[in-house]
């Protein structure tokens, strides 16, 4: 019913607006470069392979969608292909997922948008000098090691607050960093093994902070992360979340985030410097009925040089991955039937020095593993070198119920704690099989014990170890309020006979934790986690000898050097840690375990309390680890020789400190008293104004005091008074 009037109207603008746009763009087409050059015969196979590769990555295509242009002259393909997708979104997804994807050993896909090709072709050919970016000085990540006072740092986590403090002389115990806007955590904090970074766990993932102002250095997106582990040289980070990885649709893709093939896994390995995700794994739970459903952590064990990381599949194999590719080393795992546990041999100072010298061939890594008795095979401990994969030493063991491997931290000795059962399988006793790794053919020494060993600990850089053994009938069924009686024994390598000899046994203790000073010699025995005992014992194992002649064999009597330096008590102690210099010991009572008298204390190596803080909701105390010293052996020796000169400077500083502290304290007290007295005078005037009739307070008190004094002078006289109130006579008739 168009009126002539209407026909005059120009609809072009509306038509323009609502015109149906045909799919005329080429946004849904990708150009894939790096495709193998082939001839016609292989075309079908190639198309199928490309389609499969894309589909595997979540970008589903059919072989028909791929078109490969031909060079008619040579009769071969040009080495690239066009792929058509359903829509532009699918193309974008495929671009993100497959750009740089290794197709096979020789070919890597380079994916571009079809529409971009023209853009790149038309690029201005003239070279334009790029703008030089302003150089920003980054903070030195190890600046704290250069502290002129040589102090150590520690982090405390209390309530929601994380703070990092210096520990030194009383006047130098200041807060190094406390900014809860920036450095927070939702679970706990952790230092990296050389102290460079501090990791904070958030719901979304991990953040690493470092430098003097603790700026954000890196972040790793792993939702609901619960556990983390650093590689020994701080190059890599392993994270674990209970929640399997889910790849959300709207999250930008890239090398730093999870992709579809990571879905369902729990463990992720990251490169710390680049922030790239290297690989993910599902977590392995121990199989079998009745087995404790607890995952072993760390799930990946690192070789000390960060070159390899190994994962155990209990009972089957050890899979060793090379870094940074995270590919399986040698393309196959170490198949070891029944393998229960393994440990890498740590590198000592010698290896580190060798590694620094480029001329020497880097030392091979070594790992030790053990297998239990299976069928007619005896239990076995094996030393294996890697990547050579040759068996260096094997030792058969019998009647084994459990083994535990302990490397000395320099890799000089390996102790295998073997829990053996008697023939009746009723009782358990313990053997210590000690491998001397530095010697030819790896000689093994056996220390036989009658009791159960609950803890074992090597002296760092030393030839001694300490064990906690117990014959308490309550062992194995701990109940509330039960404190298990233990014995502590020290052993030392006797150089002349090449065996380990008992130094001394401390009987009838409740100690369950041994903490060696990181420099050796000093050791702390602690009763941790008990509700009734919380004793700390400080021992020195070289009391008679000076530090300078430490390496000499003891000429005096065998165990004369052992001396107790002090005893202390920290109620409810849950954690005991030495500082990295071995000068101080920190003990903490964490609110994660109980809520009574939470807080921490710092002691010196003699067991004298230096600092104690009782803090509600206190959770975590961690010393900041130190990187290994850069000084050579000669330099260290010179320092040790001139120790007396250095000591003088420190003694003077100590004396100055003491006088300044006490002067300051006296002044502070005087200020407090003056303040109070001035306030009292003001208040007395005020009261006098309000209640003029009332005696000023000071006077009243003085009067009362006088009265008391008077009373004290007085003699006490007791008088009985008979008061006759009424008296009348009744005459009885």
């Amino acid at each position, binding site marked *: 019913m168009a009126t002539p009037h209407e026909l005059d109207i120009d609809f072009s603008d509306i038509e323009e607006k609502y015109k149906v746009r045909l799919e005329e763009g080429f946004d849904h087409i990708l150009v894939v470069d790096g495709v193998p050059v082939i001839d016609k015969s292989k075309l079908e196979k190639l198309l199928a392979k490309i389609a499969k590769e894309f589909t595997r990555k979540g970008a589903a295509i059919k072989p028909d969608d791929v078109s490969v242009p031909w060079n008619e002259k040579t009769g071969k393909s040009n080495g690239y292909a066009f792929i058509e997708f359903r829509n532009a979104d699918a193309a974008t997804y495929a671009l993100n997922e497959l750009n740089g994807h290794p197709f096979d050993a020789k070919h890597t896909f380079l994916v571009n948008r079809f529409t971009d090709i023209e853009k790149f072709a038309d690029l201005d050919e003239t070279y334009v000098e790029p703008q030089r970016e302003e150089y920003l000085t980054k903070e030195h990540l190890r600046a704290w090691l250069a502290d002129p006072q040589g102090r150590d740092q520690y982090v405390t986590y209390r309530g929601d607050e994380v703070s990092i403090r210096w520990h030194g002389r009383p006047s130098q115990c200041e807060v190094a960093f406390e900014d809860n806007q920036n450095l927070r955590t939702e679970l706990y904090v952790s230092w990296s093994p050389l102290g460079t970074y501090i990791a904070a766990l958030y719901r979304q993932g991990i953040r690493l902070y470092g430098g003097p102002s603790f700026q954000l250095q890196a972040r790793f997106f792993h939702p609901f992360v619960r556990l983390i582990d650093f590689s020994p040289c701080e190059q890599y980070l392993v994270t674990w979340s209970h929640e399997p990885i889910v790849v959300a649709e709207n999250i930008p893709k890239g090398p730093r985030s999870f992709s579809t093939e990571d879905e369902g896994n729990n463990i992720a390995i990251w490169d710390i410097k680049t922030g790239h995700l290297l690989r993910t794994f599902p977590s392995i739970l121990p199989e079998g009925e009745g087995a404790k459903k607890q995952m072993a952590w760390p799930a990946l064990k690192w070789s000390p040089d960060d070159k390899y990381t190994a994962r155990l599949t209990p009972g089957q194999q050890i899979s060793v991955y090379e870094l940074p590719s995270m590919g399986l080393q040698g393309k196959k795992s170490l198949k070891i039937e029944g393998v229960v546990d393994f440990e890498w041999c740590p590198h000592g100072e010698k290896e580190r020095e060798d590694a620094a010298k480029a001329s020497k061939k880097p030392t091979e890594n070594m790992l030790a593993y053990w297998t239990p008795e299976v069928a007619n095979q005896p239990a076995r401990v094996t030393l294996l070198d890697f990547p050579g994969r040759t068996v260096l030493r094997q030792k058969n063991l019998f009647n084994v119920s459990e083994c535990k491997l302990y490397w000395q931290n320099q890799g000089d000795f390996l102790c295998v704690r073997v829990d053996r059962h008697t023939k009746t399988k009723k009782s358990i006793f313990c053997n210590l099989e000690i491998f001397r790794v530095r010697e030819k053919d790896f000689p093994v020494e056996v220390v036989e014990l009658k009791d159960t060993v609950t803890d074992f600990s090597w002296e760092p850089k030393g030839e001694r170890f300490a064990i906690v053994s117990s014959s308490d009938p309550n062992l194995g069924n701990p109940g509330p*309020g039960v404190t298990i009686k233990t014995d502590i024994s020290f052993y030392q390598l006797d150089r002349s006979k090449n065996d380990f000899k008992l130094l001394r046994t401390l009987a009838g203790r409740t100690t369950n934790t041994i903490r060696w000073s990181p420099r050796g010699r000093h050791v702390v025995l602690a009763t941790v986690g008990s*509700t009734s005992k919380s004793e700390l014992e400080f021992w020195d194992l070289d009391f008679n000898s000076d530090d300078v002649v430490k390496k000499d064999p003891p000429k005096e009597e065998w165990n004369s050097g052992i001396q107790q330096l002090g005893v202390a008590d920290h109620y409810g102690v849950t954690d005991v840690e030495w500082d990295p210099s071995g000068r101080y010991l920190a003990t903490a009572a964490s609110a994660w375990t109980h809520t009574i008298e939470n807080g921490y204390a710092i002691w*010196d190596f003699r067991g004298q309390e230096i600092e104690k803080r009782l803090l509600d909701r206190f959770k975590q105390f961690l010393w900041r680890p130190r990187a290994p010293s850069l000084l050579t052996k000669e330099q260290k020796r010179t320092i040790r020789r001139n120790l007396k000169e250095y000591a003088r400077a420190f003694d003077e500083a100590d004396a100055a400190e003491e006088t300044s502290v006490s002067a300051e304290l006296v002044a502070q007290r005087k200020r407090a008293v003056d303040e*109070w*007295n001035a306030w009292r005078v003001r208040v007395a005037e005020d009261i006098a104004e309000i209640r003029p009739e009332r005696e000023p307070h000071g006077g009243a008190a003085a009067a009362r005091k006088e009265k008391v004094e008077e009373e004290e002078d007085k003699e006490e006289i007791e008088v009985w008074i008979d008061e006759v109130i009424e008296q009348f006579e009744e005459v009885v008739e």
Partner: protein
Amino acid sequence: MHPRREQQIIYLPFTPKQNFEFCSDRGCASHERSLTQIKFNKEGDLLFSCSKDHIINVWFSHNGERLGTYNGHNGTVWTIDVDSQSRFLVSGSADNEMRLWSVQTGKCLFVWEFPTAVKRVSFSDDDEQIVCITEQRMGHQGAIRIFNVHRDGDGTAQDLEPVSMFHPVGSKATVCAFPYMPGLILTGHESGKVALFDASTGEEVLSNERAHMDVVTDLQLSPDGSYFITSSKDKTARIHDAKTLIVLKTFPTETPLNSAALAPNMPYVLLGGGQEAMSVTTTSLRQGKFEARFWHRIFEEEVGRVKGHFGPLNTIAVHPAGTAYASGGEDGFVRVHHFDESYFKARPYGEVEILN
């Protein structure tokens, strides 16, 4: 290595000279349940105690002999106060009654009845008024009432109606007292607040919302009423200026505190508390748990501890002359300690003139 740092606690060289424990095995029927409040009279010769066993006792403070009891309440007696002439005793109980007693005869002179339990009572300086706090329960708001005391006659003729009554809004009041400023009531609250109310209008004149982080458990005035000490479940005790409510001193401890008292003539404060029975996980009597703690009033440093109780300390009172103190515990014991010479002579911080 720096030298060992100065010990944090400088212990006073005193040992309590005499210990009186008012306990059942000494033949005198003492309290069978935990103590709720103890009070010295003005001269300090009498000590009043009340407990959850419904009975109020009065003792001679110098030898621990019991002088008598005040029987009549049918519930936990939460609070007592005695006037400066040792003539009247007022008590508040969980049986919703406040009673006025004759100190001398032990007779109940008057009974006020309320809809809820009485948690705190206090005489004014001039003995003319009583302030009391009643609980917030069963639809009844917590209330603060002020009564006039008719001192003439035998004391049985009292007004049933208060001269003033008001309901503090917000957090309920737990403790109260008359400060030196006339016409004001000083209160401590469940939220940790400390406030001043106008006694006639019930208007909140001044408050310090963040005085404590948890329930205020006790409030004791200085002899002139110009400052006061509060204890709290937040494990601290604090001294406040009564006029401005500014916190002057803080005494942080590691256990929840139930009571705090000022030691007259000496620059110390006494704190008592301990983990509640339900939150104690260990059976061992750990040192430092159930002790009376002495802190320096000005320097805010702990100077000593006195052991003795088997449970948390619920209430502490100091002899008005400062020669003795008494503590009442959850264990049902009242312990009286007389200070010896060394306590008065000790100058752990040297000679410093400190005004009381």
